């Protein structure tokens, strides 16, 4: 009979260790007890789930299949309440007793709840597991005020996640420095500035005494009597190892379960791993040490004793996009004999500090730029003598050959901290399996599937090792700025860049060109919902003068005629304008609009004034028009009011910019007279319902639009259209028409991210659309109030002497 191994704890440490154990031999009959009801997932990524970047499924580390394939009995939702070391049994909360030959304790830790009055009130949350995360996601909504107690790694990541969900977030920290266990006070102040730049308020040196509120949390009160109101409170004040089981079982326990270098406890058949252990006086709370411990323990428990665990250089990394923080080793500079090498630039928000002892790196802090953390980690772990590198410690000479950079890494160096994958493993896997892409590498080694911070290093390894490496790159915006648009949007948001020139100066070649400037102009407007710094020099001429340039340098003027419904009076004015300004052609367009062609730039303001109509935006990468059929008012077949709905649709979206031009159509019956099924957004009326269709085209190519949803009322149809509209605005690349976008993303995903998205996501889309709309205006108002005195004026040369100039 095989030996029975019982594992208490189905978290990262325990399961990673079991993964190692089953690699040795199948000598064990394994049972894993998990208190939570989920398979093993990547706890580090809970902040990404909270931020909506990943779903619960995305962070699963071991699927049910894995347990099944390895013949592991998994008992989820069963909390072990007792260990009997003499009888060698464990008892679960369900009363069942299980015998073991070997026992592995991997109970992890629990949130530390500080002594605060009112912590048990409804509306007070912790952030430790998937259920906590789901509860927070349910609670978080746009505009909700959240107070996070704790300014450590977890607290800050939770704060950012909640903020991304639309909450107004305040972080309250007991100490004077954020992340004081990882940073010094200067580093902490740089981090605070970054967090505040993201819009998260930080209160330091505040001791919370009360969580007040009648029936549920309504705010927090501090020792000094001041208060902050809040809709809910999150406690992220640290962790406490779960050691009660071990203690009552009589194992040696200090702060946590004491283990030796072979990961054995004081009982010969009981082992422990992870956050619940104390090794050489240290309790680790980060993932890399747990993985190393697991490897040693697997060797020990399977009878391959020999490997020892001697401790890990602690290293911490904050996983908030745009807020690079990395810290490792001992950074207290106070010890005599330490050299401190520092660099800081408040304007860039970059702070780097290296602590050297006897010319060897003892600790480091990086804030604002952690791109070279792996090199420092290497120096730290290998205790490299840095005497001959002293001149280039903080600014190493650039490595022209990325293979060299990779070659310097030792084989045993862990590249992926989330999964404990070493450089050696990666190189070996690439060679043995003939891998060529990062996707394959991820699949085979799981490297870079966790937090993703090592993906660049993995790419470099592939490049250096794989003979036919194919770089998977999203297209950079243009040669001026070597980043793709997804990344740029992230940067613009995180760094709060509000002007095109700022982006070009910081991330590009400063000059920009006719490709990136309009694209960035759009991005600024979209990201900041119109509250950006408009720079007309970065706009195409059409958007400088709000008319469409023609082959001879003249312009065309198309007034807005919503839904294509006009009046004799309006037509008369149009006719008068056409005559007065000798318009060379008056044309009815394919979009049911009237185009006045051949107008001089300097005449535009006067023409707009005479027309007395808003801009039809027919020159812009923006909302063009809604084409409608006659609908129920006159048509014998109309079953829905296409005109009123079409006019309303146009009114809701008009004056907004989109990644490319956006044409819409609304028809009152499936005969589809206004061709709604070949528009970017179409509403097709049926008896008693509307079909909302998206991604149609009738241009260079013809594409029938995809059905987004069928709804009953006009308002619901308009709401669904609004979700898609804003989703397209936020996610498409510049100059990507809706039909290319829908094909690239896939209509299923579009539905999932819009009409079937969680309520908070939908509200976010609606709210940003509302803000953009509130900040938009009819461009032709600039006829009266030009944004620059010479915007429309034909400048005349000055008379030779008189210092006078002509102004219209």
């Amino acid at each position, binding site marked *: 009979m095989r030996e029975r191994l019982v594992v208490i704890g189905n978290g990262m440490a325990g399961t990673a260790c079991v993964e190692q154990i089953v690699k040795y031999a199948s000598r064990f009959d394994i049972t894993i007890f998990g208190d939570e009801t989920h398979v093993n997932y990547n706890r580090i990524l809970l902040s990404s789930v909270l931020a909506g970047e990943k779903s619960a499924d995305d962070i699963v580390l071991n699927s049910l299949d894995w347990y099944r394939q390895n013949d592991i009995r998994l008992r989820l939702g069963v909390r072990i309440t007792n260990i009997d070391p003499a009888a060698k049994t464990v008892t679960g909360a369900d009363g069942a007793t299980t015998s073991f030959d070997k026992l592995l304790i991997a109970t992890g830790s629990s949130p530390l709840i500080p002594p605060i009055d009112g912590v048990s009130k409804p509306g007070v949350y912790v952030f430790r597991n998937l259920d906590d995360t789901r509860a927070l996601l349910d609670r978080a909504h746009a505009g909700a005020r959240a107070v996070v107690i704790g300014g450590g790694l977890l607290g800050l990541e939770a704060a950012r996640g909640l903020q991304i969900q639309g909450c107004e977030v305040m972080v309250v920290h007991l100490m004077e420095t954020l992340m004081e266990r990882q940073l010094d006070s200067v580093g902490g102040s740089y981090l605070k500035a970054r967090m505040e730049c993201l819009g998260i308020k930080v209160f330091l040196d505040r001791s919370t005494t009360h969580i007040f509120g009648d029936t549920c949390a309504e705010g927090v009160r501090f020792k000094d009597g001041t208060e902050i109101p809040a809709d809910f409170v999150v406690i992220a004040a640290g962790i406490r190892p779960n050691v009660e089981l071990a203690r009552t079982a009589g194992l040696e326990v200090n702060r946590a379960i004491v283990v030796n270098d072979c990961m054995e406890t004081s009982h010969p058949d009981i082992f422990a791993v992870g956050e619940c252990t104390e090794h050489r006086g240290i309790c680790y709370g980060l993932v890399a040490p747990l993985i190393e411990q697991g490897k040693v323990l697997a060797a020990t428990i399977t009878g391959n004793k020999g490997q020892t665990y001697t401790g890990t250089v602690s290293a911490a990394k904050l996983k908030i996009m745009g807020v690079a923080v990395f810290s490792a080793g001992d950074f207290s500079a106070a010890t005599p004999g330490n050299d401190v090498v520092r660099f800081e630039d408040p304007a860039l928000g970059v702070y780097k500090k290296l602590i050297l002892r006897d010319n060897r790196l003892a600790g480091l802090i990086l804030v604002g730029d952690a791109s070279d953390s792996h090199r420092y980690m290497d120096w730290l772990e290998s205790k490299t003598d840095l005497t001959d590198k002293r001149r280039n410690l903080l600014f190493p000479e650039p490595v022209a050959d990325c293979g060299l950079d990779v070659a310097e890494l030792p084989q045993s160096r862990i590249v992926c901290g989330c999964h404990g994958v070493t450089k050696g493993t990666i190189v070996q896997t690439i060679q043995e399996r003939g891998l060529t892409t990062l996707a394959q590498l991820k699949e085979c080694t799981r490297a870079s599937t966790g937090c993703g911070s090592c993906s660049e290093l993995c790419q470099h390894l592939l490049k250096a090792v794989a003979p036919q490496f194919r770089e998977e790159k999203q297209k950079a915006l243009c040669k*001026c700025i070597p980043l793709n648009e997804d990344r740029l949007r992230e940067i613009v948001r995180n760094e709060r860049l509000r002007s095109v020139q700022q982006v070009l100066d910081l991330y590009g*070649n*400063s*000059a*920009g*060109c*006719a490709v990136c*400037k*309009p694209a960035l102009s759009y991005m600024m407007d979209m990201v900041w919902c119109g509250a950006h710094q408009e*720079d*007309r*020099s*970065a*706009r*195409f*001429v059409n958007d*400088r003068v709000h008319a469409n*340039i023609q*082959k*001879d*340098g003249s312009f065309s003027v198309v007034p807005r005629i919503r839904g294509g419904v006009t009046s004799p009076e309006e037509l008369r004015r149009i006719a008068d304008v056409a005559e*007065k*300004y*000798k318009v060379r052609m008056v044309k009815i367009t394919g979009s049911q609009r009237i185009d006045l062609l051949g107008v*001089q730039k*300097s*005449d535009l303001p*006067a023409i707009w004034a005479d027309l007395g109509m808003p801009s039809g935006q027919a020159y812009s990468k923006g909302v063009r028009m809604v084409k409608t059929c006659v609908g129920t008012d006159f048509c014998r077949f109309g079953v829905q009011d296409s005109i009123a709905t079409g006019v309303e649709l146009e009114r809701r979206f008009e004056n907004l910019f989109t990644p490319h031009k956006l044409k819409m159509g609304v028809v009152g019956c499936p005969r589809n007279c206004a061709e709604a099924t070949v528009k970017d957004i179409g509403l097709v009326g049926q008896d008693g319902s509307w079909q909302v269709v998206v991604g149609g085209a009738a241009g260079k190519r013809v594409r029938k639009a995809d059905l987004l949803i069928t709804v009953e009322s006009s308002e619901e149809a308009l709401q669904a259209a609004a979700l898609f509209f804003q989703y397209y605005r936020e996610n498409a690349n510049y100059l990507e028409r809706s039909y290319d976008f829908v094909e690239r993303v896939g209509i299923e995903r579009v539905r999932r991210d819009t009409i079937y998205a969680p309520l908070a996501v939908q509200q976010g889309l609606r709210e940003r659309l509302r803000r953009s709309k509130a900040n938009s205006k009819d461009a032709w108002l600039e006829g009266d109030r030009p944004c*620059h*005195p*010479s915007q429309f004026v*034909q*400048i*005349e*040369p*000055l*008379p*030779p002497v008189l*210092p*006078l*100039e*002509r*102004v*219209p």
Partner: protein
Amino acid sequence: MTRIETRWVPLTGCENIPVREGRAIDVQGQQVAVFNLGHKFIAIGNRCPHRGGPLADGILSGSSVVCPLHAWTFDLTDGRVKNHPESQACLVTFPVRVEHGIVSVELPAPLEDCGAKPASCDHRDRPVRWVLRKEPSPAP
């Protein structure tokens, strides 16, 4: 050898040409495009050699301009086409100087007088105002 007569023509105040934009100015039938590069002004003939596009309406890319019609790109410092190597076309460039906040260009003569040309559009019905220019601002 014939010597080409030139003259300096004051065009407009610096403030009339926004940074990183251009403006077209009609000097007695000669269309001049003046650009404000931030650190200096540059003047060229306002006609793209490709299809006659108004270069003053183009987007600037450093010290190059992109024609708004078909994106032909020209280096403003020497007038050369940058993205159509097969083309021998070249822009006319004019020397520029800035004095007392006024941009002037050196254009070829012969022209009898340097007075301002009347407005080219005859249907302006809005009143034309003449105002004193603001204090001349130094060239950026």
